[in-house]
């Protein structure tokens, strides 16, 4: 213990001799760090890049206050690297002059931590951490300085194909796709973050065991969403969206293309092609198209064969999920949204001005159905239900186990979406509480367990 401390002190002395000023490291410095640590003065891009490209595993890099005018990605390919600045207002990695088509911070390495810094104007993603086990994003900001610009990078904070991920107390702003995007991960906690000015604020995609709580999604095109995409061998499951604030997500959709460009502005939350999802205790307010939609993956990809996955390729546990078999031998599909609980949420002022410009024309459908009345708080597409009847509860099936109830000011409708078109609308099923047959209150297989990170 003493020995380690001495090492850290002597390192600091050595670095101080090179010209580091304690005033440039007001928040964090190597003095706080056990083990190998390097301090980089604010703005010393050459020193930072040389350090990162000659890095030993388990090195902490502390960046001084100031702006680093980056000309290339910060590429980390070692395990145990901690990248720590002086705070999101004090240390900035600025990629405005980076001509190469790269992510801002690009990481593959287990036990990675990034903390107390801002990454702005990255050509592609802000901070992308791929194929890594043990990832922490803490008090960081990923942003683009020009709001609503379709040439902004795609994702701000982007852990992908990683395990044991924590994203907390961070901000993601102005991404042209998703601000905070958790893709194809396992065992994830996303808490107490703010996402604003993005197309999609916070996305959980093809991810298993995610606990998303205490976040604020404000002024995005869509707030907080969970979904699976076709063809991905991580079948999403056990996603808990709870105690978040999801409001004013009416930002014009400025995505340059792709699936996200089809999201109607004014969307609070959707779960698509998802199973074992709890949406509870959230506050929804002033999302103009609607608060919560539960929809089948067939809405974006109607060809069920494209949702076929060979069971031999699947990641994690899936055999308890009762997934529909595919047409091919040894395959399953994951386009259904099923086994979802929506409870104890609060709804205020949403659904009054559906987006009339979304390519899928959800908004147009909603205006035709609701006219000037508020859109129901929870919309279920009823795709895959063998029975639908707009007036008789007993003539509706709940094959997908959609459980809705106990929401403050919350209403519900089943849309019969398969029968709707631009030229022909059929009535929704809009029951009064308790919304039978959608009045179940628990998930099949029991409630979602807490995510435990090492």
């Amino acid at each position, binding site marked *: 213990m003493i020995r380690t401390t001495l090492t850290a002190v002597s390192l600091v002395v050595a670095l101080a001799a090179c010209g580091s000023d304690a005033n440039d490291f007001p928040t964090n410095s190597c003095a706080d760090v056990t083990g190998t640590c390097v301090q980089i003065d604010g703005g010393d891009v050459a020193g930072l890049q*040389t350090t990162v490209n000659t890095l030993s595993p388990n090195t902490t890099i502390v960046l001084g206050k100031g702006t680093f005018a980056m000309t290339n990605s910060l590429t*980390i390919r070692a395990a145990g690297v901690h990248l720590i600045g002086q705070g999101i207002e004090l240390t900035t990695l600025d990629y405005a002059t980076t001509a190469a088509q790269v992510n801002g911070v690009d990481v593959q390495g287990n036990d990675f931590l990034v903390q107390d810094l801002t990454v702005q104007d990255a050509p592609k993603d802000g901070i992308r951490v791929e194929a890594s086990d043990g990832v922490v994003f803490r008090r960081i900001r990923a942003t683009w300085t020009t709001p609503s610009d379709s040439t902004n990078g795609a994702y701000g904070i982007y852990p992908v194909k990683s395990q044991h991920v924590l994203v907390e107390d961070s901000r993601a702003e102005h991404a042209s796709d998703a601000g905070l995007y958790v893709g194809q991960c396992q065992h994830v906690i996303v808490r107490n973050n703010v996402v604003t000015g993005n197309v999609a604020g916070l996305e959980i995609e093809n991810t298993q065991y995610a606990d998303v709580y205490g976040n604020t999604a404000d002024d995005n095109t869509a707030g907080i969403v969970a979904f699976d995409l076709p063809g*991905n061998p991580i079948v999403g499951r056990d996603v808990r969206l709870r105690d978040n604030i999801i409001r004013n997500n009416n930002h014009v959709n400025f995505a340059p293309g792709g*699936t996200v460009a089809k999201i109607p502005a004014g969307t609070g939350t959707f779960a698509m092609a998802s199973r074992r999802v709890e949406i509870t205790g959230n506050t929804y307010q002033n999302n103009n198209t609607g608060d919560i939609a539960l929809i089948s993956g067939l809405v974006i990809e109607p060809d069920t064969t494209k949702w076929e996955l060979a069971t031999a390729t699947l990641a994690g546990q899936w055999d308890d999920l009762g997934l529909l078999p595919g047409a091919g031998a040894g395959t399953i599909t994951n386009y259904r949204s099923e086994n979802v609980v929506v409870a104890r949420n609060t709804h205020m002022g949403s659904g009054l001005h559906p987006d009339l410009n979304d390519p899928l024309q959800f908004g147009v459908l909603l205006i035709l159905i609701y006219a000037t009345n508020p859109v129901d708080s929870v919309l279920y597409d009823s795709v895959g239900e063998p029975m639908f009847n707009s007036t008789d509860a007993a003539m509706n099936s709940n094959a997908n186990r959609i459980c809705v109830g106990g929401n403050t000011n919350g209403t519900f409708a089943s849309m019969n979406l398969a029968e709707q078109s631009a030229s022909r609308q059929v009535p929704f099923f809009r029951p009064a509480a308790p919304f039978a047959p959608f009045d179940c209150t628990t998930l099949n297989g029991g409630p979602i367990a807490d995510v435990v990170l090492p």
Partner: protein
Amino acid sequence: MRPSLRTLGATLAAVAVAAVAGCGADDAGGGVDLSQPVHVDVTAPPPTRLSAYNLFAWDPATGYTFNPTDDRVVPYDLNAPLFSDYALKQRAVYLPQGAAATYQPELVFDFPVGTVLLKNFAMAPDLRAPTVGVRLIETRLLVRYPDGWQPLPYVWNEDQTDAELAPAGAFEVIAFTDDAGQARTANYLVPQKNQCETCHARKPTPTAAPAIVPIGMKARHLNRGYDFGGAVGIANQLERLAALGMLTGAPATATIPAAYDLRPLDTGGVAAIPPADLDAAARSYLDINCAHCHDPNAVQGITSQLFLGHDNTDLFRLGYCKRPGSAGAGTGGFEFDIVPGSPDTSILYFRLATETVGAMMPLLGRSVTHTKGAALIHAWIAAMPPVDCTTM
């Protein structure tokens, strides 16, 4: 505003190189001496100067002279080369005395410890006269250490006398005239050391940990003639390596498949490719330019589930009527990777042809469009029997 910013970038890169040079003390100049053998020490840190390897001499007027000692440095070329912003490339392989690579039919050959693969990247001011005024920008080495391949980028100095190890890479704006006489400007990036993995990391199996591997050193790419000059003249590269004792286990050359030789595209454009060869030529082009990422065993690119290797027979995964997963700006507003018969609505063609950052492919190594390569892919998709993907 942009030019001054780019200058800043180049300055910063130069500072980075200088900083690295300042850290090294293992080789105090001396230059290349081709009367001495190649020097590779896999037990020491890599030298900060390229000349320390003694692999080759470079003279902008006369070109490359490879170390002739025992014929252990052998230049070679590939049937289908990777496009890199119109850089002129010269490749060579060095094997230690008495050591040989082991032939593999599909994958990269197995190389002994001490092997060096080198690739020189040079730019000419006017590609209509590609030997005039050539400036060597960088030399990339892949060195086979006991624990695997190490990528080592070396950046040449302004005087063209030596190159220095540049783990931080470099960036430079380079203006030139292309082979059609068009003025072009490349945002030329020397990748930083860690970025080498973007293309060179590969998993031996889809679930194994990735490791750094060479790309071009495969039988199908090397199976072609090369003018070795002198008494050897033009010889098949595989046969030459075998004759030098540097490759063992290779079957008769006639039985080894060869990637489509894209030299005619380079000289005559897509018009020089016979229509019957379009598919083979395009697949060869996609293989060398894309499949280091777009392959089930790659690291980057597998999220897309778009597989562009020469051996992929799954047309959907090749892009036929396939929607991209999350291509964002990369779609160009189009729906499908390949719309057979309709290159101008195919994302694959769009991403090869565009110069828009955030949309173009490949991710690294290209900032300007490879006009003839894009035309090849355009012609390939146009020649496919048309399909209405929206009804599939």
